[in-house]
């Protein structure tokens, strides 16, 4: 097994996927979860780059189809990041924290009288 450029960066991609997965699962801060998601994505795309490089034909260069997909995927990741950051900032503005834990009460409250008077605001407006 020769460690060519495709293998090296493919392995780096695999590592980044693992690190990103760990970050998404184990890091408690939502902003860093977003960051970890981006790491995971870029790792998977780097593996895709290795795949494209493996399929390189002499005189033709790497397979362009994975490259196009990676570009599309990067844009989608950016859109995801923007949406999550927007949600996080709004949550912070509304509640003063970025904790994603459900409020301590709702489950028990659900058994008696949930404070959901306003839950239909969208409908009732």
């Amino acid at each position: 097994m020769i460690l060519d450029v495709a293998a090296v960066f493919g392995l780096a991609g695999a590592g980044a996927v693992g690190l990103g997965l760990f970050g998404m699962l184990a890091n408690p801060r939502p902003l860093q979860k977003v960051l970890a998601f981006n790491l995971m994505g870029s790792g998977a795309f780097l593996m895709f780059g290795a795949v494209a490089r493996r399929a390189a034909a002499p005189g033709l260069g790497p397979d362009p189809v994975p490259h196009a997909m990676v570009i599309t995927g990067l844009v989608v990741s950016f859109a995801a990041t923007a949406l999550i950051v927007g949600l996080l900032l709004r949550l912070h503005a509304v509640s003063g924290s970025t904790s994603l834990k459900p409020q301590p009460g709702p489950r028990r409250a659900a058994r008696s009288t949930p404070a959901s008077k306003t839950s239909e605001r969208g409908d009732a407006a």
Partner: protein
Amino acid sequence: MTAWFDVGLALMALGLAWRAIATRRAFDSTVAFVIYGLVLTIAWVRLGAYDVALTEAAVGSGLTGALLLGAAHRLERAPADEDRPSAPLRALLAVACAGVALGLGAVVLALPQVEPLQAVAAASAAEATGLLNPVNNVLMAFRAIDTVLEKMVLFAALVGVWSLAPDAAWGRRPGRRFPPAAEGPLTLFARVLPPVGVLIAAHLLWVGADAPGGAFQGATILAAMILLVRLAGLADAPPVSSRALRLLIVLGPAAFLGVGMAGVVLAGAPFAYPAAHAKAIILVVEFAMLVSVAATLALLVVGPPERAQAAP
């Protein structure tokens, strides 16, 4: 020699990735992530993927970095009362994630040296569109539906971000207001750099037909310039209720969809281009997308309207 270079680069990327998820302060991990993106740009160049390298530099590192840096700044004082897994659980997760990484690594090493079917096909089909850049052929012709859907994803994200505005701020200008700065080096910089950026964006769009580049990469540069001008307080975004702004945002996707449906009549299939004018049509669509995408990307970084009073 180059092998060592690659290995060093890969290790650097992994080290930065580790720092990005392991550091406590959001700001530090964001900086690590931005640098990671720059390292990846070089990696993509080494893999011969110049279009991807441009995109990674512009989006993966540049705009995502700007977005995350801004958020890290504003969330700095947020209390971290999170559901942090216990140490044994973290160890378990770490082992499992390492397993996933090892498995994927094994797959990478087992990748077959496949026949470059698609590369050959893409190169031989390139005549049909008149574009010589294979990646742009894939994006604009062979997999046009992916590109349309991707633009709609950006659009949906913008609609979503705007919908997060407080009720009182709806219809106003997006984001915070940056007061115009006193004359100084920063203002000068924000005046001098954008024309250069516009030139580079136009250059990327134009060469994108035949060489790495294209509408999206150009749009990212434009978006960065728009943000720069806004940061320096030289201009503010138009209010979200502005119909001109909304038209600008949908111009690109609508043009692509319109041309795609016109293809049914003109070229016999949806998203087909009439062979004689394929290149001209693609360039027109790309120009429309350049404008729309630049506006959308910049507005995504700016965020929802949040000023309750109308800006002066």
